[in-house]
């Protein structure tokens, strides 16, 4: 098991190098003079020259990448233009807010998705099973910004029961925080909830037709125990894979949701960076999201092995 984790960690290295190359060349994909992009058309030739010098733009491409990498390794992601502070600082400060939202969303999506999927799988073809299929389809075909706006209309403007924007002060208490989180969490979770529910349903259905479930039944074990102790544990690895993929999507999905609800996270900052052409911040943000994606996948792989004794013990 330990050797497996080490091996998986080593496999990450080439992926990360690939990501840094991709983000590095982002600057080169943007048409025109990079100094034009970074400083705006009105900048003086002197400041342009200073920037070229500090960015090493007059050096060869390989040297530039090496400089970029050595800066990266010391935690230097450059200077954000719109926040006028180091990118690493900006991201570090906002990451907590995004993680809070994404974490809440994946929690809601997993718990509700697994419960709904299992519930439907117990009676395949029944009214509740078909009902779930329709809800899943509905959630899956709805863009999150649209769902966010609808929720704002209903709960914020119409019923006036929930706050629709921003994040409260830490001093204002847990309840206020949860109230502010409610709508963005639901918006962010909806799509993943549907995917997880669908996967759970088919995984449980597949497992429940296995011979060992019949063995348990033939020994008089009740349906409730069969679902809890026989079907779910064996269905979990398949569901975990989906949850892992969804977590990756949640962080990138946060861009839209945070924008709709003005949630002060990495997503909102990225959105603002794109509109204000804050390239270093975009680069840093993408790099961080990619790293999170890779790390989550690693965790899912490890959990997958953990839930499969056959793989774990070999």
């Amino acid at each position, binding site marked *: 098991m330990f050797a497996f984790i080490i091996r998986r960690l080593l496999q990450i290295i080439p992926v990360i190098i690939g990501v840094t190359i991709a983000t590095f060349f982002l600057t080169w994909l943007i048409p025109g003079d990079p100094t034009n992009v970074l400083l705006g058309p009105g900048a003086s030739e002197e400041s342009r020259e200073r920037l070229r010098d500090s960015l090493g733009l007059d050096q060869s491409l390989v040297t530039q990448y090496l400089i970029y990498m050595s800066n990266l390794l010391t935690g230097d992601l450059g200077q954000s233009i719109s926040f006028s502070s180091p990118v690493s600082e900006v991201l570090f400060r906002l990451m907590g807010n995004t993680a809070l939202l994404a974490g809440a969303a994946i929690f809601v999506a997993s718990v509700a998705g697994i419960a709904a999927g299992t519930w439907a799988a117990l009676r395949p073809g029944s009214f509740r099973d078909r009902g779930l299929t329709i809800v899943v389809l509905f959630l899956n075909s709805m863009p999150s910004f649209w769902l966010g706006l609808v929720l704002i209309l209903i709960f914020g403007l119409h019923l006036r029961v929930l706050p629709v924007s921003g994040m409260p002060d830490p001093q204002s208490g847990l309840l206020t925080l949860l109230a502010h989180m409610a709508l963005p969490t639901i918006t962010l979770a909806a799509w993943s909830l549907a995917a997880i529910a669908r996967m759970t349903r088919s995984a449980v259905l597949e497992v429940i037709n296995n011979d*060992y479930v*019949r063995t348990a039944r*033939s020994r008089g074990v009740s349906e409730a125990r069969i679902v809890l102790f026989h079907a779910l544990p064996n269905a979990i690895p398949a569901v975990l894979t989906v949850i892992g993929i969804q977590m990756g999507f949640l962080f990138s999905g946060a861009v839209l949701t945070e924008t709709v609800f003005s949630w002060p996270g990495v997503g909102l900052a990225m959105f603002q960076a794109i509109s204000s052409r804050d390239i270093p911040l975009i680069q840093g943000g993408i790099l961080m999201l990619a790293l999170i994606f890779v790390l989550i996948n690693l965790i899912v792989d490890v959990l997958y092995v953990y839930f499969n004794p056959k793989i774990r013990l070999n």
Partner: protein
Amino acid sequence: MTGKTQMTHPAQPVEPILSVDGLSVSYGSARQPLNVVKDVSFDVAPGQVLGIVGESGSGKSQTVLAVLQLLAEGGRISGGQVRFEGAELQSLSQRRMRKVRGQGIALISQDALSSLNPSMKIGRQMAEPLIAYDGLSASAARKRCTELLELVGIPAPAHRLESYPHELSGGMRQRVLIAMAISRNPRVLIADEPTTALDVTIQAQIINLIDDLRKELGMALVLITHDLGVVAGIADRISVMYAGRIVETATTDQIFAASRHPYTRALLSSIPKPDQPRGERLKPIPGLPVDPREDVRGCAFNPRCTHALASCTESLPAMIAAEDDGQHLFRCPVDPFRPAEAEGPRARLQGNGGMS
């Protein structure tokens, strides 16, 4: 004659512990049903061994799954009844039926690897119903499971409780499955092809083990197999199934020495004898095996039967008693294997002429 076969003699009528009467099983819609078991009847007396022999698609496994009400999704009992210790099983509540399973009638399935939960340790799987329903404490259940594993001949049983199924050999897994089946002291043991995937030496060990346990614990045994050799040594009676129906039922000696149904005969002569000279042609049954999707008119075996008459394709043959004692029944109006001296009147048991 051994003591076993005498038990089946009508001179000592024993109340059957398990009695299946006219059982039919269908899959699919009521309008277009796929009938996999048709009008199957058999009795098993306490301590007795019944062999049910049939090839793939004969409905033998579906029959016993229906007895336990463990049919797969879409399957249902479409006729007949099952009685266990006098109680009609279909009228029982879910709760009572769960009690019958395991405590009354236990099942040993064919593929031991897929029949054990891959992510649960052997000890936990074994102990689950003992703790949940029989009120055993965790340590008492553990002690009982160790004893059970010892009983089925697993070395270092306490150690094995901590193993996962994939860590055991095929023969060991089958032994674990047997230990699980007898863990709640059932009265009837149903073994569905318990040795199919095993090596021939392990196969012999497992069959002997099941039969030893039956004697020791006083259970009745229903042994389902495609291999007549497997049941020959331990069954008191044998029922031969073809295309969802029992075509012949008799004592073991009668089946092997004086079977009357052409299918039973053909099946026996298709088996290569261990002393079969090399190159002497085998006598396989011509044609294709049973396809449950096809509803053959009349006797289902008629397309492959070398003795079939025109009438065989028209109406379903009734069960006929070979002798007056009613122990030997078969379904063939042609009766090509009637012994010369037994020309006397043949009793018609039922006049069921059409397809059910």
